[in-house]
């Protein structure tokens, strides 16, 4: 019984962390059709921003939820202005450029921080369920990802910016026709996507051994989740994260972590073979 509960928590955590990892990429890809291969490094920098802020005496929650998204969002803004802006509509070129950026960021962070940066401990203690100790921080991650989804939904549904964003997602030329500068929309989108990546990196930082090359672990997973989700931003994110999270955790518990990861990948292949446009290309059509 205790074990069932532990497994349940781990499964929820797996889904939540997939949502966190993929959300930033989903925003950028969904709105701009740009695949940001530096997404993992944005997360990594979120982690470093958090650690630096905490070491400077900032409260850890402020550092994770405010400082890191802002810092990474600003880095994203600079990147968008200097590089991405020149490459809109050229899918493959943006991939090459962002791959270059990811290498650049790894090099920069190594130069600045070195390879042994002391991490920060989780601010929430573990707690006991029967005979088991559970990582209390898992609940925080689950909460953050739910909150993130709610905020995204609220922004898209209830604000003017969200309306423009939805319009842009469906017809990228529409917003321009209505007199909104696509340049500014893209700028804002990239800022948001980067900030969300920074948030994800910051929130996951206390659970991982953060080194400059940590970002590489996220990008493939995020990419697969976003593409498998299909065209609807939030519904796609939730459905594919849930599917992949459950499948991988099930096999992790049943067999081993490697089989869990392989199961996730196999699930992705099968899914895309059956639904070539992603989950929401078939279901939840036209939803967010």
């Amino acid at each position, binding site marked *: 019984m205790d074990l069932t509960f532990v497994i349940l928590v781990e499964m929820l955590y797996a889904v939540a962390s997939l949502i966190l990892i993929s959300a930033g990429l989903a925003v950028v890809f969904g709105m701009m059709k740009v695949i940001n291969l530096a997404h993992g490094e944005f997360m990594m920098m979120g982690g470093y921003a958090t650690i630096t802020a905490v070491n400077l005496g900032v409260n850890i929650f402020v550092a994770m939820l405010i400082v890191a998204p802002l810092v990474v969002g600003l880095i994203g803004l600079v990147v968008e202005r200097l*590089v991405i802006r020149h490459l809109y509509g050229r*899918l493959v*070129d943006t991939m090459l450029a962002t*791959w270059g950026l990811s*290498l*650049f960021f790894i*090099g920069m962070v190594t130069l600045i921080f070195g390879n042994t940066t002391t991490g920060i401990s989780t601010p929430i203690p573990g707690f006991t369920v029967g005979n088991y100790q559970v990582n209390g921080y898992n609940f925080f991650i689950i909460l953050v990802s739910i909150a993130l989804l709610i905020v995204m939904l609220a922004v898209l549904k209830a604000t003017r910016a969200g309306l423009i964003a939805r319009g842009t997602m469906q017809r990228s030329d529409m917003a321009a026709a209505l007199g909104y500068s696509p340049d500014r929309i893209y700028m804002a989108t990239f800022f948001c996507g980067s900030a969300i990546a920074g948030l994800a990196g910051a929130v996951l930082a206390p659970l991982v051994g953060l080194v400059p090359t940590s970002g590489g672990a996220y990008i493939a997973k995020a990419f697969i989740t976003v593409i498998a989700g299909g065209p609807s931003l939030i519904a796609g994110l939730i459905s594919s994260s849930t599917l992949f999270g459950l499948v991988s955790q099930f096999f992790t518990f049943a067999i081993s972590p490697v089989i869990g990861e*392989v199961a996730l*990948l196999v699930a992705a*292949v099968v899914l895309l073979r059956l639904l070539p446009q992603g989950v929401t290309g078939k279901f939840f059509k036209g939803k967010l």
Partner: protein
Amino acid sequence: MIKTSATRDVVTTLVVAALLITIMPQLIGTYTLTVLVVYGMLGLSLGLIWGFGGILCFGQAAYFGLGAYTYAIAAVNFGESTLPMLLAVLVPALFAAILGAMMFYGRLTDVYLGVITLVVTLILFKFINSTAGPQYKIGDARLGGFNGIPGFQTLNVPGRPNDYIWGDAYFYFCAIALVIVYLLVTWLLRSSFGRIAVGIRENETRIALMGYDVAARKTVLFAIGAAIAGLSGALFANWAEIVTPGLFSLGQSAEIIIWCIVGGLGTRFGPVIGAAGLAYLKFLLGQQSMIDNTLIIGLILVFFVLFLPKGILPAVTDIWRVSFGRRKRRGARTRRGRGGRQHG
């Protein structure tokens, strides 16, 4: 499409190849040259299916690795190199044919296709990477997990397992292999099959409406690309004398894509030059330790995309045309065209 005459094309290729094979060893050690040639062939394999067939494969490294591992495993078991070389071409081709049929008959396109190939590469990588235990054996060959397989029989004269082809001879072997593959690719692109493949790249629906079985043709082209990548993998294995899971890695796949873009997509020579050039650059950078090399490569890529987006070869051709050209064909390769191809 290729518009010069066939004879002229072959003669040019042979003359340029002969010159390069004679001159390059005076400038760069043959050992390093060998791997540049091998990478050139790998670049050509993706350049063929992507630049001319419009299939963006994120997992070309899978066939490279598969070729290398097939060779290594077979060489350990057979103790000679001829049959392993053949297998190293056939196994990746067969694998690609099955995977390709699954994808193309499922009408998967562009970015979805990219994800599937990426995922399949990751699966192979994860599998090979977790085979360190003694239970993972194929015949006499331990798969070795992360450490890979060292110490297999390297290339020998067919039928004489003790006469090794190595050193300078191996360089000439690889260089000639690349020339042959290059000529085969040229021939393929001139054939009806190649011209239809370019048609598919340009407009898949139209080619289907003409009555061509697009899925079958893409599958065949995909398998040909995999066969070339597999051959280059086997050549690599012979050169490095060890195969490791790194050959399957995401980084390796990305590098191949980068070679093609930097060299020039939609050309035959571009990906070859892009591969050899970037690999040599990496080699040169490794000789300095003042600045982090990851950082430099990253910067170079970004600058490339921003300032030389069409790739080296088309840029050089453009300059040549502007400087010396008499006939001006309008807009051979517009930016719009390039974007269109990537989606199509």
